[in-house]
């Protein structure tokens, strides 16, 4: 009996001590966000599966930005700590990650993810928590319209802007000459929306085009031979392809085996990651569009960033890394201006402002928090670029479609929110 009472007493004491230290720990964690030596930001993104490379490089950009800011004293005197988690391409997991980052790690800002469906879910959660969220990879126009919140910031040209930039390029390059066009896009919302925006932009810009074929293979289809044969038979001058990453690599390899590139100029997101994967197999003469190609920026800030990124990670930065880096710069600038990490203060400071970033001084439009970045279009070079590890990049000069030419107006964005 005595032993039992002693044991119970010891157990109760241990429990009390544990709960006390737990409370103290929680208080310390809670206060660290307010007055401790560090401030936490979170990146929930896709770090596994077929689109892991987009998430991984985006995270690298975010981490490097935090490291660079810390090297100069951090933000408001506090060092930045980056916490990250894999959303496994699942909205529920993404939201759970962000909830843990906000409630458990006391993150004052969130960055990512890759998939727009996850971004939309996280946007709703962070809005309710008054936490700023920065989209540096996902770019569905719905993020700045139907699910828009004042705490959400979009640095990536959206699904309407990118195809408009391509149409702008065709309009200015062919100036009224008739062209035949085919489209190829995965059969889901991003693919169909992108193609629809492209066709609409061709009409709006009075491009003299004839649409000869449209193919919408299932998302992730690995054997696209029949589609390629159908496109070949239509003999389009241009093929607008809305795929990206690994799917675009697979398309390119199989299209080459069907000799599609000999008669048709393919237009697709031939960015650094895809060109790096294709290597010497990159399709010379194909038209690429990109959100932030490092080779198109000649500023000293960009060159320094590329050098540092290469030294840190052993590779040149993709646009996902550049945009991730720039979005952290935006947040840090806004927090400094607001002299606060509060979501309301940071959002108010950044909305309509023109923070300096590695991409230059770009305004964050007040009506939809879209950073006014241009979109870049160029042709894939036949020559390996020695400064890029022998990877063929784009021919110069690169066509730059300014934001004013490719974006919807604020009035149009407001209309889309209804």
């Amino acid at each position, binding site marked *: 009996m005595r032993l039992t009472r002693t044991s119970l007493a010891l157990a109760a004491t241990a429990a009390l001590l544990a709960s006390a230290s737990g409370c103290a720990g929680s208080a310390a964690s809670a206060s660290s966000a307010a007055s401790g030596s560090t401030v936490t930001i979170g990146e929930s993104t896709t*770090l*596994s*599966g*077929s*689109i*892991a*490379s987009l*998430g*991984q490089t985006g995270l690298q950009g975010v981490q490097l930005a935090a490291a660079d800011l810390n090297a100069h004293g951090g933000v408001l005197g506090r060092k930045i700590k980056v916490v990250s988690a894999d959303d496994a391409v699942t909205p529920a997991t993404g939201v759970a990650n962000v909830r843990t980052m906000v409630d458990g790690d006391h993150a004052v800002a969130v960055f990512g993810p890759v998939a727009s469906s996850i971004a939309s879910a996280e946007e709703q959660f962070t809005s309710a928590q008054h936490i700023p969220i920065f989209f540096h990879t996902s770019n569905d126009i719905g993020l700045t319209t139907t699910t828009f919140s004042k705490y959400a910031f979009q640095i990536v040209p959206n699904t309407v802007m990118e195809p408009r930039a391509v149409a702008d390029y065709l309009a200015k390059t062919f100036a009224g000459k008739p062209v035949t066009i085919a489209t190829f896009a995965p*059969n889901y919302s991003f693919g169909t929306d992108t193609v629809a925006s492209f066709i609409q932009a061709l009409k709006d810009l009075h491009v003299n085009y004839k649409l000869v074929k449209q193919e*919408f*293979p*299932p*998302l*992730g*289809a*690995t*054997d696209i*031979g*029949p*589609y390629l*044969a159908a496109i*070949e*038979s239509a003999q389009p001058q241009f093929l607008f392809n809305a795929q990206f*990453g*690994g*799917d675009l*690599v*697979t398309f390119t*390899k*199989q299209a080459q*085996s*069907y*000799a599609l590139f000999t008669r048709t100029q393919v237009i697709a997101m031939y960015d650094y*990651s895809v060109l*790096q*994967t*294709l*290597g010497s*197999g990159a399709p010379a003469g194909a038209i690429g569009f990109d959100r932030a190609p490092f080779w198109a920026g000649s500023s000293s800030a960009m060159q320094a960033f590329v050098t540092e990124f290469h030294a840190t990670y052993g590779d040149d930065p993709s646009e996902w890394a550049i945009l991730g880096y720039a979005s952290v710069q935006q947040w840090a600038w806004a927090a400094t201006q607001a002299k606060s990490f509060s979501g309301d203060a940071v959002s108010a400071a950044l909305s309509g402002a023109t923070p300096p970033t590695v991409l230059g001084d770009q305004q964050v439009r007040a009506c939809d928090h879209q950073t006014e970045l241009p979109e870049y279009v160029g042709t894939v070079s036949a020559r390996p670029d020695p400064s890029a590890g022998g990877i063929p990049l784009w021919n110069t000069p690169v066509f730059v479609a300014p934001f004013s030419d490719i974006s919807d107006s604020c009035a149009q964005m407001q209309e889309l929110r209804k």
Partner: protein
Amino acid sequence: MNIETVITESVSILTDASTLFIVSAGLTLVFGGLRLINMAHGSFYMIGALGTTTAVAAFGIGGSAGFWLALLVVPVAVAALGAGVEVTVLRRIYGKEDLAQLLATFALLLVFGDLGLRLWGSDDRTLSPPGAVGGRFHLDGAVIPQYNLVVIAVAAVVGAGLWLLLGRTTVGWRIRAATEDPESLAVGGTNLALLRTGVFALGAALAAIGGAAIAPLEAVGPGLDTQIIVSAFIVTVVGGLGSIQGAALGALVIATVETLGTLWVPSYASSAGYIVMILVLAVRPWGLFGTPER
């Protein structure tokens, strides 16, 4: 439908069916011999594909020799990996309830997925088709990539090899007997443990051959494991668990339905395989060539 379309669609169907058959044959062999549903089968496919890109680069042999050498070496290496997994993990779960086996192999899927990311990173890789078969030719207006025919030929060789092994060798007889009456086989002096290891290793090697064969046609990277495993399971269920002939016919059926589906009803093409599987399960639950459970 003109002759050009018929030829193009046929080549596409046979190419898809070939990959599905090679991978599904391994999955169904493991189930037939070990009564084990291996969720990690796709991992061996992924490792085979990624390993092939690494091996070709490592061999540094010019021309197509590097690829053919990798096609031989990588499946052997993956077979060794499979044998190691069988000895260290799977032997502990034979005879356990099905859920425990599924969970254990699913855990292996996750482990291999993470290991794959750490070893090969998250970036996609590509491989060029071997030079001698990297071109194309025309037939009645249809363009036929030569390498697609190589994939079909590999599947034919694998099929013939399995037919010979299972139908014409003592080892094959023992494998078939192990599915029917393992106790009697053990009493007769067969080392069941070694037989099971061999079957699992062979299944892993088949998955790796599938991955190696497909590497020149697609971007190879994370996600390949889960990309193939669902299709492989559908083929195996349709064909009948434990039946190699079933895997062959199932692969052909699924590839045909999916390819023609994209041509005629593209909105439903991605569901075609599942619809076929549901129909087969409803009418003949043991699959086209399977045997009913007694």
